């Protein structure tokens, strides 16, 4: 589904991501972990095109993405959430989702004739469905800035889904959640996979990563130091040393 070949990004003298190769198969939940500053978020920004690549190529369903601007990549089917929540605070919950309907199907539906054929009603139905899925239906007309932290996280996820992604990049979705909320998040992630969405999960919370992922890659200093199933990664001594620190057992 998604393939990174020798992806490199330098900031001045710092090699934030250095020759990263990654293959995310269709329909899987792929975990990307690593210590702070290991280049995880940069990788997401490179995949979505917020930063240009210094070197390497990114393939999505066999197509090169390197030169496409961010919004075009979304239209190809790559959506994301942000580590630090970035909602449109002065838009309502409903509008946040409305703005995000940018998939080719939605765009076609907004053309002049399609509108008369009920395109708008279908867009509304879809938003209603997403609100239901994220448990935000009762807050539809609230300004996003007025939501609680957990609700904002859910809205971010819903907003990414509004673009009908094939690949979803989740950048630390569990940060700041309690274990009950993490449980709900796990349910949602599994439900999404069941719908056929491939997921790249970047996460610190091991409870979540080890529980849902099919495969995990570990980054350190911008390089991949290990890849394998959750069990293999947990057993890998290199990972334990780099990630958990020397003192961990």
């Amino acid at each position: 589904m998604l393939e990174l070949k020798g992806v490199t990004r330098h900031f001045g003298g710092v090699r934030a991501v250095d020759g990263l190769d990654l293959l995310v198969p269709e329909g899987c939940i792929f975990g990307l972990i690593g210590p702070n500053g290991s280049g995880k978020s940069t990788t997401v920004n490179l995949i979505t095109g917020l930063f240009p690549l210094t070197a390497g190529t990114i393939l999505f369903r066999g197509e090169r993405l390197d030169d496409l601007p961010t919004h075009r990549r979304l239209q190809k089917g790559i959506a994301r959430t942000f580590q630090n929540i970035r909602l449109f605070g002065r838009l309502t919950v409903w509008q946040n989702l409305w703005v995000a309907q940018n998939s080719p199907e939605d765009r076609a539906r907004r053309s002049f004739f399609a509108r008369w054929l009920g395109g708008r009603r279908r867009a509304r139905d879809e938003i209603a469905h997403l609100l239901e899925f994220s448990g935000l239906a009762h807050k539809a007309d609230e300004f996003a800035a007025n939501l609680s932290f957990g609700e904002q996280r859910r809205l971010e996820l819903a907003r990414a889904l509004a673009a009908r992604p094939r690949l979803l990049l989740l950048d630390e979705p569990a940060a700041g959640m309690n274990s009950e909320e993490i449980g709900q998040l796990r349910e949602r992630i599994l439900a999404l996979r069941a719908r056929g969405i491939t997921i790249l999960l970047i996460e610190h919370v091991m409870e979540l990563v080890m529980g849902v992922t099919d495969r995990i890659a570990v980054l350190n200093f911008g390089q991949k130091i290990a890849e394998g199933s959750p069990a293999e990664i947990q057993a890998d001594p290199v990972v334990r040393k780099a990630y958990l620190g020397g003192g961990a057992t």
Partner: protein
Amino acid sequence: MDFYFGLIQLIGVHTLLGLSAYIVLLTGQVSLAQAAFYAIGAYVSGMLTVLAEWHIVPALAVGGLAGAAAACAVGFPALRVKGLMLVIATLAFGEGVRIFFFNFDYQIAKGDIKVGPLGGEGFRQIRFFPENGWTTFDVMLFIWLFVVLVMALLWWFDRSRYGAVLRAVGEDEVAAQSVGVNLTAVKVSAMTVGGAIAGIAGCLYAHYTTHIEHASFNVLVATFAIAYPIVGGLQSVFGTLAAVVFVQGFLVEGLRELGDWRNLLFGALIVLAMNLRPQGLFWRRGA
């Protein structure tokens, strides 16, 4: 009574000028180039009615298009910069256009006098309205026809998905990009619509004052253009209208009887207004 009609004309033209900045401000861009589009609309349409003897309506359309074209052309390079850099880049563009008109001569003989723009001396006798028997009241209606049209258009934008997209870009460009919004298209389109509105406003300005010159389009005018929506608040188009009424109707015209104190109060009241209502005067409870 003519005085009130005249004042309503003035408020109408300034509202259009403010609305031209309003739509651009929604996308989070502070543009000081609106005075330039205003100038372009004024000069182009003035030349059409005076030199080519066109009717005001087609001249107004061409003036609006010229403003839009200039704004579209500025929109692309202006996208390279943000925030303060954009403010100053657009300010530089505005000053550039003003200096262009300062150096721009194009006169033809008409009867025993020469008409047309003459550099630093300006462009006089743009008298389409009085020469064709339009009363102050007619002109007021004509101006407000456009104010209502533009306000209705922008109000409809605000309720449509396009308006939500504009505001989303204004809130967070990175997030907007990441949910698939084409930043270039949105910003340039907002700039272009703003340019068209400013061009129309400029055309109306030129014809109701009958005389324009480079100094009528200086930085202060550009600042007023963004001041109206900011003072009024960006929640709706009515904020801009409220601010124009506050500034032109109250601070400028209403306080005229105060004589000497008027201009001192002008600045002080703007400072006070922004301290008391930083979201703008016209802002309902909510976010």
